[in-house]
């Protein structure tokens, strides 16, 4: 059977973010290109959410494993900033999964982020907007910490990034 790019995109739907295990790399928006060179050779290009993201090596290995599973014995994974990531690249499905996993999804932006956007985040637990930004820096580079004044719980947001 001929290897198609479509088949690879499909396979990548089952490769997940190591920190948020239900969120696929496709829904996270970090896969930018897939090129099939022959039946057993293909190159996938990914771009990091943050340049210092330590998960990028894990993602490369996980993608290679998934390509080998569908018969691509010579998988290549490139890391590039040609098509840089920004938080608008998270799919609608991805945003729903974030919320399900207890993270506030990042608000959509127009190419820049203002502090006020971080101060009125919707609580992923109770839906209240009566929340306070605790710190824009959280347990990983892509998360900020907030507190909900309605349900009295701390929560994290997947940070908006322009």
């Amino acid at each position, binding site marked *: 059977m001929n290897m198609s790019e479509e088949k690879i995109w499909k396979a990548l739907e089952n490769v997940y973010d190591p920190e948020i295990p239900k969120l696929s790399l496709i829904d996270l928006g970090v896969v930018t290109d897939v090129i099939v060179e022959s039946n057993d050779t293909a190159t996938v290009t990914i771009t*990091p959410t943050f*340049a*210092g993201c330590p998960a990028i090596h894990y993602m490369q290995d996980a993608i290679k494993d998934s390509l080998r599973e569908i018969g691509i014995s010579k998988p290549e994974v490139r890391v590039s900033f040609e098509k840089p990531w920004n938080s608008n690249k998270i799919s609608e499905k991805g945003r729903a999964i974030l919320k399900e996993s207890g993270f506030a999804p990042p608000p959509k932006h127009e190419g820049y982020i203002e*502090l006020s956007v971080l101060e009125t985040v919707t609580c992923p637990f109770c839906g209240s907007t009566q929340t306070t930004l605790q710190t*824009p*820096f*959280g347990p990983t*580079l892509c998360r900020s910490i907030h507190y909900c004044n309605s349900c009295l719980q701390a929560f994290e947001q997947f940070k908006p990034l322009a």
Partner: protein
Amino acid sequence: MKTPHQLALKDLLFKMADDCLILGHRNSEWVGIGPMLEEDIAFASIAQDKLGHALALYTILHDHCEEPDADTLAFMRGEGSFRCCHFVEIPTQEYDFALVRHFLFDTADHLRFEMLTTSAFEPLAQLARKVKGEIAYHTMHANIFIRTVSNGSEEAKFRMQSAFNEAYPLALGIFEESPNEQELMENGIFGGERHLFELWLKTIQPIVHQAGLKIPSDAMPVFGGRKGYHTEHLTPLLEEMSEVFAQDPSAEW
């Protein structure tokens, strides 16, 4: 790839990467001892971003300028080949100095990457478009804290002004021109240190004013770092940073 302005380009990439690597390490020294948990995490996150930017810049040097890989560039060079400014080398000392350095350096860093988004050297322009959004979080943090802390109490104001007086001449060293500055500007790679300095001054002035601080009027820039002359603090830092790597450079991590 060999181009006529290779030297100028390498110089620019090395000074940017070295600044990020060294300041990243200095920022990481707050891990576990920050004045409050949020600041501990903030400095750790900013440190991680800086190391990420250093990695990306060293990777460009490796991919486009025939230099060794990022680990070798970061951990196997002597101080004479480093092009970082003295500002980033100075030991972390107290939180007031760390905060002022974070404010002055990251504002310059943000503006530099903004300028580079239109660089004629496409790999650098691509990186700049990516990381300027990340650094926006650093300057947002710095702008809030510099004002909040400075306006806290009389003692706080005094300490912040003292730290500012110490940091400012060092910060001017960020803008030390390279011998190939003209080459960069003529080829559309980078708009030049003088232009960056003017933008920087215009950007910090209102924040400094709102913080109730004063910019020292007689500051002499501390130069030398961009030419490979460093403070006595750099070599001990490089030795500490590369201690594990140097034990077995071929180890797989």
